[in-house]
């Protein structure tokens, strides 16, 4: 990363890790004494940091005065939480019934091949995270997939590389 520890030198709007941790600490302070607020804190922390690595889990556990295993137990229970860094773009292939029968699985297989990752993983260059979605409500466009907020309809596996080239 081209950022210094305390202040970002590259001119971008990105915050440094330290700034992110400070923000998370504020959230912890706010929720610390509220019973049942761990999930809110984890949501906020994931929004700020992008994902929830072990070190951040330790930080939250210490701050919330909860055992680390409890924090990690909650994180692994909910599929929304991620312990792996997310890529710059998230690809979600729809695996709802309509998309599935129209070849959604073939899209996943091909993407796994092209990106050299399994579902749920992120490419080495942190560009893409490959995920599946359970019906994005575009059944008439099956098989469909989303890259970030953009929906691609009737995707042909052979066209995937062309689509990815746009990013």
């Amino acid at each position: 990363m081209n950022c210094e520890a305390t202040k970002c030198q590259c001119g971008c709007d990105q915050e440094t890790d330290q700034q992110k941790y400070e923000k998370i600490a504020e959230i912890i302070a706010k929720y610390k004494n509220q019973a049942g607020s761990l999930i809110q804190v984890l949501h906020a922390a994931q929004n700020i940091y992008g994902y929830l690595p072990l070190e951040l889990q330790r930080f939250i556990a210490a701050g919330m005065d909860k055992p680390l295993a409890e924090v990690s137990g909650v994180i692994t229970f909910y599929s929304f939480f991620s312990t792996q860094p997310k890529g710059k773009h998230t690809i979600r292939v729809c695996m709802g019934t309509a998309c599935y029968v129209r070849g959604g699985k073939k899209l996943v297989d091909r993407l796994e091949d092209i990106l050299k990752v399994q579902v749920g993983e992120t490419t080495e260059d942190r560009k893409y995270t490959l995920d599946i979605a359970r019906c994005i409500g575009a059944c008439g466009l099956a098989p469909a997939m989303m890259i970030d907020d953009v929906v691609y309809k009737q995707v042909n596996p052979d066209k995937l590389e062309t689509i990815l080239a746009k990013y």
Partner: protein
Amino acid sequence: MINLTINNKSVCVPDSTTILEAAKQNNIDIPHLCYLEGVHKFGSCRLCVVEVEGVKNLQASCMAEVREGMVVHTNTEKVRKVRKNNYELLLSNHLQDCPSCETNKNCELQDMGVRLGVTEARFAGKTTVSKVDISPSITRDMNKCILCRRCVTVCNDIQNVGVLSAHNRGFSTVINTAMDLPLNTVDCTYCGQCTVVCPVGAIKETDEIHNVWQALSDKNKRVVVQLSSAVSVAIGEEFGYEPGTPLAGELVSCLREMGFDDIFNTNAAFDLTVVEQSTELLNRLKTTQAGNEAKLPLVTSCCSSFIKYVENKYPEELDYISTTKSPDLMLGALAKSHYTEKMNMNLSETYVVSVMPCTAKKFEITRPEMQNNGLPNVDAVLTTREVARMIKEAGIDLRNLSKNQFDQPFSLSSGAAELFGVTGGVMQATLSTVYEMVTGRELPFNKLQVTSIAGFDQTMDMELKIENPLEAYQYLDGVTIKVAVTSGFRGAEFLMNQIVKGESPYHFIEVMGCPGGCVNGGGQPRPLTLEILQKRLEALYGQSEGKATSKPNDNEVISALYKEYLQEPYSPRAQELLHTQHRKTV
């Protein structure tokens, strides 16, 4: 009170009783696997289901509370069928390597199959696969886990340590450490309470049996073994004796038949610990009374699990912990110095085994600070359960053995030492020793003011005023010594937090990691009930009263040891062998 009908019998039980408890009070034992009386109530195994008239689904009787006019059937065709089904489902994701499992024939899952009359396992579906996690003290094989979550409850709610928790969801659920970290890298204290409550062989002590057999079959090795009373009053449970049957004499004969060369009584070293620790306490009191700085309160060091706890959570406060080694390590250090010299033995061929009610000791002996002359004070630790397995393996009939005495010089012990395995035992022995050292008089126990600390089970404090001390201890005249005793880590956390804040009102604190003390240790026979624990306690109190010598400082073995070898308490030699500097493991 609530009136209800169970199996056509009208019964009356207090409000908020569960169906399972209500049935038990009326001599109906509903089969259950995950439920553990007084400890764990979760309703995951679904084997305790019963029929309740007017309710469509079967109810988990460990969770469902009684209601007025309820009609319950615990043994109908439907109930029996569902229980068998649920049992087979549990079995379908359980690694069924029973013949080669350490807990074979000591397994609640097996027993339940027999009880439910299950004769087939029809479901062979997908199984979850986990790697086996081996730490110095505890081994976790989650392929055998049935997700009862008893370990999660003892680790979090009872011990307040919290290194185990349920992870993932649905079929992938696994009881795990945070992010699947190995147990030796998280804040586990190795107390082993999880190994006592596990109904199957998923969590157990890390096996040392093989190493000990190897040492025993090595003709060049002289194998020394030591054991404590908490072991001898509990081991009978593994052989069908009434709980609380004291078997020290039989156990000595047994260990001799197994080929151990010297069989020592760890209780003798308890007395030594008390004398050394009392001296250390007086030294620290003297320093502070003279206006200089010394770490007070002095906190006991005999619980290996507690030392690990302090290292994990309060590494800055390690200096408050007594420098005395735990008794079995003291005995090991002496067996590998004084005893080898006396018997003209080869030091490097001496192998010391501790039989302990404890799993944490398996880790403790690997600490570099528990060594002298580059050799570990103790080479292997066996739990009560492990030594019972070895006896069975050797085919020795414990019941038909004559009683035998421990070997000299570590044979005799005081009555006070019998109570080391019970919370408060160390405190009682140390206070009476200190009082006698300082005043030359015996401690009248009505002088102690004992008060429970509100909100904490098994935590209490006491005060003792010193009056008319001997010449050398004038600095303590009129001083009121304040002490506290606790077992389990909840009380420990409270007392340690006081120290951190500099608000501890105490001079001396005794902490035992396992609730109730070593008698309820992580290496003791299972399953454990409150009744069994009570019987073990009674046995220890009985043995304590039956001793010729009641006080540690009157133990002639110890006086001889000081005269022959150690010179005096806290002498340079005593410091080298019997004391250590606690350090955080890197």
